[in-house]
């Protein structure tokens, strides 16, 4: 009995230490993540499996497109150059692929919040006819036929058989490690760097005009807002309303983070703006009034062209080179 208790205590202490992994961390002064790690505790092996899946076109019907095709690490995990994202056989979707970072803090996913949990997110692009056009049943079948994945699944789960649950959880694990919190802005907050005068002025203007939706430190309030874009009659995308079926949600889209915005162009849900100054001009000159327009955009925003330049200077301080060029986020080479 004594030995048993000793063992028990040892095991408990050990399991506490094991949790202290560096795969995930909460940056200083950040809120608590919403992802429930208890149901999917991160391990090196599971993250590695997820990373392999993320970069593998095996997820698509004709083995041509991977997650990384539209979520490239050097572009803050989005798709550059294309306003609307591409899928297999050059099919074109209806929305601009979002960036992937700091996802443990997100309650819902997609521009309209259609997905309610990070684990379930990958199902959407895998199944969408204009994206990977594949069935998760078939993905699992292909993974079970692959020698490479047999050993990756075994290393990760102690069981070589792939299932939908394990596949999705592994992809989640990799995505959860994509934390961007090392930009110049963050260093300034930690008092180890200083803004230039221009950046500082831009930050003040940002706080005044932009921060109610793009809340620090995530630079999004994670809510759905109508930011006054003119509706594109061809796409006729009503955003959140499609999911909630509530007219109060018409034209509302999830507020995107501004972190690494320098690299995540084009902007907006349909990628209509290529440049940051076009975005700022939209907010000062082109807001479409409607009953669902965000509260904070009801009064016109007035900015001089110098002030716009300052805001952009500040936005560039949100670039996190360590995040963008982290080899642990890239294509998986041999371990």
């Amino acid at each position, binding site marked *: 009995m004594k030995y048993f208790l000793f063992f028990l205590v040892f095991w408990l202490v050990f399991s506490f230490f094991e949790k202290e992994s560096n795969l995930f961390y909460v940056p200083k002064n950040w809120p608590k993540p919403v992802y429930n790690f208890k149901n999917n505790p991160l391990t090196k092996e599971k993250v590695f499996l997820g990373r392999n899946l993320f970069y593998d076109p095996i997820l698509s019907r004709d083995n041509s497109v991977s997650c990384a095709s539209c979520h490239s690490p050097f572009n803050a995990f989005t798709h550059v150059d294309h306003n609307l994202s591409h899928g297999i056989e050059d099919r074109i979707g209806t929305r601009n692929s979002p960036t992937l970072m700091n996802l443990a803090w997100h309650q819902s996913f997609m521009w309209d919040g*259609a997905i309610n949990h*990070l684990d*379930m997110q990958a199902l959407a692009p895998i199944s969408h006819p204009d994206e990977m056009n594949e069935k*998760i049943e078939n993905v*699992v079948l292909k993974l079970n036929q692959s020698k490479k994945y047999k050993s990756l699944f075994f290393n990760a789960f102690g069981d070589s058989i792939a299932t*939908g*649950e394990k596949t999705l959880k592994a992809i989640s694990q990799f995505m959860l490690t994509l934390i961007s919190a090392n930009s110049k802005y963050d260093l300034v907050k930690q008092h180890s760097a200083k803004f230039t005068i221009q950046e500082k002025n831009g930050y003040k203007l940002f706080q005044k005009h932009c921060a109610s939706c793009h809340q620090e430190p995530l630079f999004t309030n994670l809510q759905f807002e109508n930011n006054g874009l003119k509706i594109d009659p061809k796409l006729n995308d009503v955003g959140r309303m499609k999911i909630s079926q509530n007219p109060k949600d018409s034209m509302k889209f999830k507020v995107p983070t501004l972190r690494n915005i320098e690299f995540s162009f084009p902007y907006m849900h349909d990628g209509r703006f290529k440049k940051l100054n076009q975005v700022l001009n939209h907010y000062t000159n082109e807001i479409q009034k409607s009953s669902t327009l965000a509260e904070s955009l009801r009064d016109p925003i007035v900015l001089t062209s110098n002030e716009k330049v300052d805001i952009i200077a500040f936005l560039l301080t949100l670039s996190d080179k360590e995040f963008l060029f982290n080899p642990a986020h890239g294509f998986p080479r041999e371990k």
Partner: protein
Amino acid sequence: MKQLIFFFLFLMINARLLSQETETFEINFAPTFFSKQLKLNQYYKTNQEDSIQITTFKFYVSNIELVNENKIVWKVNQGFYLIDIETENSLKINSLIPKNIQYDKISFDLGIDSLTNVSGAFGGVLDPTQGMYWTWQSGYINLKLEGNCSQSLQSNHEFIFHLGGYQSPFNTIQKISFETKKQLVYQVGIELNNWISEVDLEQTKAIMSPRKEAIEMAEKATKMFVLK
């Protein structure tokens, strides 16, 4: 420390359960159409003498409860069952219950509760590879019925009902309950005609998203369950 307490609590509960005598509680589902055994891909005649064929018929049963004098006396934990007419084994569900328990009502949910719906990926019958999970919008499909009927004015005379939705105001989960005396084996009929005869198959082709019509349809579907 918290973990330690939980661990001992867990041990204690388990010890209690193990010391208790248990017996097997069983529900057998018997799918029928006008009292004839229902099989996929066979033709049956409806009320209006139209011929009808079912190609897919699957649904979730969860949250089985035993109730005595309006108090829940036993809950089957983690009990999610996927009933698939195609798979004979899935029609039988069983669980261990304490031997001395008394109850006058059994109930179960037709579908998956909202907490499970928002808690990420699960395995077993809840694995998304079971084809009972929506991909374009998160949420389980509580009930799937697909087939064709000569009455339908749609192309190929098809109908597809994927009933799901866990969020108010489009929560489609339904509670089925039967007043009954204690029994160890229950025969629960699934008389599809009780549901289908209330549906306008001439006009209704597809319901495949959480909306008002899905709730109405799920309510009608509850009528097919009859305790024998």
